[in-house]
């Protein structure tokens, strides 16, 4: 990707946003370091797993990205409503798969748990399942705290995300 980054360097931007999933962003991180780019490099939640830090190595240092809170579950304040769910998920994931849990597995976990809730409330047809899901309020999942309605099928607000930065091969929260 040095050719693209050289072109970008030529027009002197204030920052670079790289939106993608591995391995592309890891290559870009390495190439940016090779070219000596000093401007901030922002990436997407598509690389918010330890795999990215492992692939990009030292070049990952200082890169910032928005991410779900699961990456930084252990350093969240105890007052965070998601804290309990996140800590349990990270621990169970580690015990079961012997790997670090990230939000990729977390999304599937949320989906299954939301469905479980709908079933337990007696939904048994597609329309009934939908109606039950739309009644979900304040579900503290891994991807965020979900509150659905018939208008809102995304269910998340801005507070579901934190801005993280790679520091010493780990994630820290940017305040």
């Amino acid at each position, binding site marked *: 990707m*040095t*050719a*693209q980054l050289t*072109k970008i360097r030529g027009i002197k931007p204030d920052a670079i946003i790289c939106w993608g999933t591995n*391995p592309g962003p*890891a290559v870009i991180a390495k190439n940016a370091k*090779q070219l000596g780019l000093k401007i901030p490099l922002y990436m997407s939640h598509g690389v918010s797993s330890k*795999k990215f830090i492992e*692939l990009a190595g030292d070049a990952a240092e200082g890169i910032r990205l928005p991410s779900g809170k699961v990456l930084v579950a252990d350093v969240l304040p105890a007052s965070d409503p998601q804290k309990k769910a996140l800590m349990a998920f990270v621990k169970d994931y580690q015990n079961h798969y012997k790997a670090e849990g990230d939000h990729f597995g977390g999304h599937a976990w949320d989906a299954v748990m939301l469905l479980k809730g709908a079933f337990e409330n007696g939904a048994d047809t597609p329309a009934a399942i939908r109606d039950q899901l739309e009644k979900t309020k304040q579900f503290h999942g891994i991807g965020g705290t979900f509150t659905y309605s018939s208008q809102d099928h995304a269910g998340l607000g801005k507070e579901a995300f934190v801005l993280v930065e790679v520091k010493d091969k780990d994630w820290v929260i940017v305040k």
Partner: protein
Amino acid sequence: MQFDQLLQYLLSGLSTGAIYALIGIGFSIIYNATGIINFAQGEFVMLGGMVTLLFLETGKLPLWAAIPCAVAVSTASGMLFERLAIRPLRQPTPINLVIITIGGSILIRGLAMLLWGKDTHAIPPFSGEEPLAVGGATILPQHLWILGVTLLIIAANKYYFYHTISGKAMRACAYNRRAAGLVGIDVRRMVLFSFIISSAMGSVAGIIVAPLTMTAYDVGIMLGLKGFCAAIIGGMSSGGATVVGGLVLGILESLGAGLISSGYKDAIAFIILLLLLFIRPQGLFGKAQSERV
């Protein structure tokens, strides 16, 4: 546009081009010995990187030991491929053989996916990641490794084909298989040799590029096609013309991505490939009906 920008495009293009050249020569060597295009060539490139990783992480070997082991394993799989898939064929028409190599490449890719999963992996660079300044451009020590290793392999290749008996025998097969057989050259052995050399070269290409571009079970497809393109530009020669083909391709891609749009980076290679196949199937430098060695 500034000069240092242009220099950066050229240097980036050269190192990618060197990889294409190595893979392209692998295509040509097999083509010259057997008359077929081995579409499994890219898979040996993938095997080089992935097997190195296996020795590094599972075998706990240091890098300098893991690399020769990986080349040996990839070369052995190239030999096996020739023995099990190419040689037993009762009607070795080119179309049958080419289809078999495509089947073989899908099989190797599938096995690699089952064995190593779909994740991308990184191999540590051979000597650090400190960028080196060249003029106004920067390169990594790994780029020097790529250029150096490529030069070395091309020189060794040249020596083999022009100064050893078995190399000359292989060239004889390329000129005329039947006549080579009549003067006592074991053509089937030469075919096996050609697979050994190409899979070894392919795997080396896969290893030296892995620290820069990462590796995964499916990197062989694209690298293989680019190598094929280099070989076509070079008119399927196993010498200088294919090297030039690879370098030209690498530089054009890099300039195209930098000056036009990165969306066309891969398209550039394939447009060149199609144009050449339509207009100059003998290669950019070859005369029609030239001898391909």
